[in-house]
C-alpha cells in the first residue's frame, strides 16, 4: 500500500491568511502532483513536479505556489486565502515505470474552507 500523507485533513481559516498544505510520501517517488476538486466536480491538476527543484503549473490556473526541496515533500502555499479557494486539495505521487505508464497514488486530501 502506498504511503502518502497530507496535513491538515481539514482547515477552516479567515480571508487573507497565509496557509501551507503539507504533502509527503515515503516511497521515493520522483513525480508528485497537486489536484483541486470541488464537490461533485472533476479533479483539476494545479501543480506537478518531476523531482527536486522541478515544479510546473497544471491545467487549472491557481494562485497557489509549490516547492520541491526534498523528494519526499511537496508543500502547497496560498499567500492570501480567499473564499474562492474553498475546495478539496489532493496530493498524489507516481511510481517509476516505463514512460507514460505510471500509477498515481493519492493522499487522503485536505478540505479547505475559507471564510
Amino acid at each position: 500500500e502506498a504511503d502518502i500523507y497530507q496535513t491538515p485533513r481539514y482547515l477552516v481559516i479567515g480571508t487573507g491568511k497565509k496557509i501551507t498544505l503539507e504533502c509527503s510520501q515515503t516511497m521515493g517517488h520522483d513525480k508528485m502532483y497537486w489536484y483541486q476538486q470541488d464537490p461533485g466536480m472533476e479533479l483539476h491538476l494545479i501543480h506537478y513536479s518531476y523531482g527536486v527543484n522541478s515544479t510546473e503549473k497544471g491545467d487549472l490556473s491557481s494562485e497557489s505556489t509549490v516547492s520541491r526541496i526534498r523528494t519526499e515533500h511537496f508543500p502547497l502555499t496560498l499567500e492570501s486565502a480567499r473564499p474562492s479557494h474553498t475546495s478539496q486539495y489532493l496530493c498524489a505521487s507516481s511510481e517509476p515505470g516505463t514512460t507514460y505508464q505510471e500509477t498515481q497514488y493519492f493522499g487522503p486530501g485536505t478540505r479547505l474552507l475559507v471564510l
Partner: protein
Amino acid sequence: EDKVVQSPLSLVVHEGDTVTLNCSYEVTNFRSLLWYKQEKKAPTFLFMLTSSGIEKKSGRLSSILDKKELFSILNITATQTGDSAIYLCAVVVEGDKIIFGKGTRLHILP
C-alpha cells in the same frame, strides 16, 4: 482541447445488479487510461489500460479499452452496497498530464 467524458453522471441500481460505466475521450498523444474509485476521501486506483481489447479484471470489476473508438468501460457484476462511490476515469497524455472526467456517481440500494 483534451477532454474526458463519463456517462452516466449518476446511476442508482439494486444490490446484485450489473452496471457498466462509460468513459470516452478526445485527446492528443494518448498514453494510458486510468480508473479510480472515490468514496469519502481520495481516489483509490483500480485499473490502468494501455492496449485495446485486453480486459483487466479484479474480482467483480473488469475494464476494457477501445483505442479505435476512443472509449473504455468499467463493469461491476453482482454489485454490493460497498460499491457505492464515484468512479473516475482519467487519461494520461504525453507530458505526463492527466485529464479526469467528472465521474459517475454510483449508488447501490440494499
